[in-house]
């Protein structure tokens, strides 16, 4: 991290939560509900630190589309 803390899944998860909260308050509740931010958030979790790294970011993303 820029402040020297070790990068951990918990830390990245907290950053993602803060980002979602900030976007939610800046775009308003209605726009937030119409967006795919929650799906994007869970996809991010699957590809950015969970288990084995998946080969391509878009592979799990396609399953979210259908």
């Amino acid at each position, binding site marked *: *991290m*820029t402040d*020297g*803390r*070790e*990068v*951990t*899944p918990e*830390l*990245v998860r907290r*950053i*993602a939560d803060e*980002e*979602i909260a900030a*976007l939610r308050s800046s775009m308003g509740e209605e726009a937030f509900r119409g*967006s*795919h*931010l929650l*799906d*994007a*958030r869970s*996809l*991010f979790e699957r*590809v*950015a*630190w969970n288990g084995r*790294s998946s080969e*391509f*970011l*878009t592979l799990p*993303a396609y399953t*979210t*589309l259908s």
Partner: protein
Amino acid sequence: MTTPFMRAYTELLVATCHRRGAMAIGGMAAFIPNRRDPEVTEAALAKVREDKLREAADGFDGTWVAHPDLVGVATEGLRRGARTRSNQLERTREDVDVHPEDLLHLKAYLPGRRQRGRAPDQTSPSVIQYLESWLRGTGAAAIANLMEDAATSEISRAQIWQWCHHHTR
């Protein structure tokens, strides 16, 4: 683009293409102009100009831009660097001496050490916003004055994955 392994790949690309008589096409600088913010636009134009001059000097024949407003500056950069010839196929770059190990010069990414540059608190928001855009059907999205595509997000999420798994600070 000037880190050693990136440098090795661009040099090898020009030499390989020209040895076979193929045009070498340069890459995309992610900086994009913002029609509502002249300062952002000016900075983007300067960065793209510098990038295209480097490509032209290296022997590239053409290039790729992230935004239509960049066509002018890219054309100018390439023309200047290529001295108005329409291509540089005759520059076979026999001086290029790149070996497989140069393409894998990744010491900066050893466990525990984070390369200078963006940290997770800076990359995560872009990845989430990009994925949201992708799920809406837009595969290239302007986020924080940079053109983000799947490749950028792919690199960012791979870095975050590696940082998490190698106890990086």
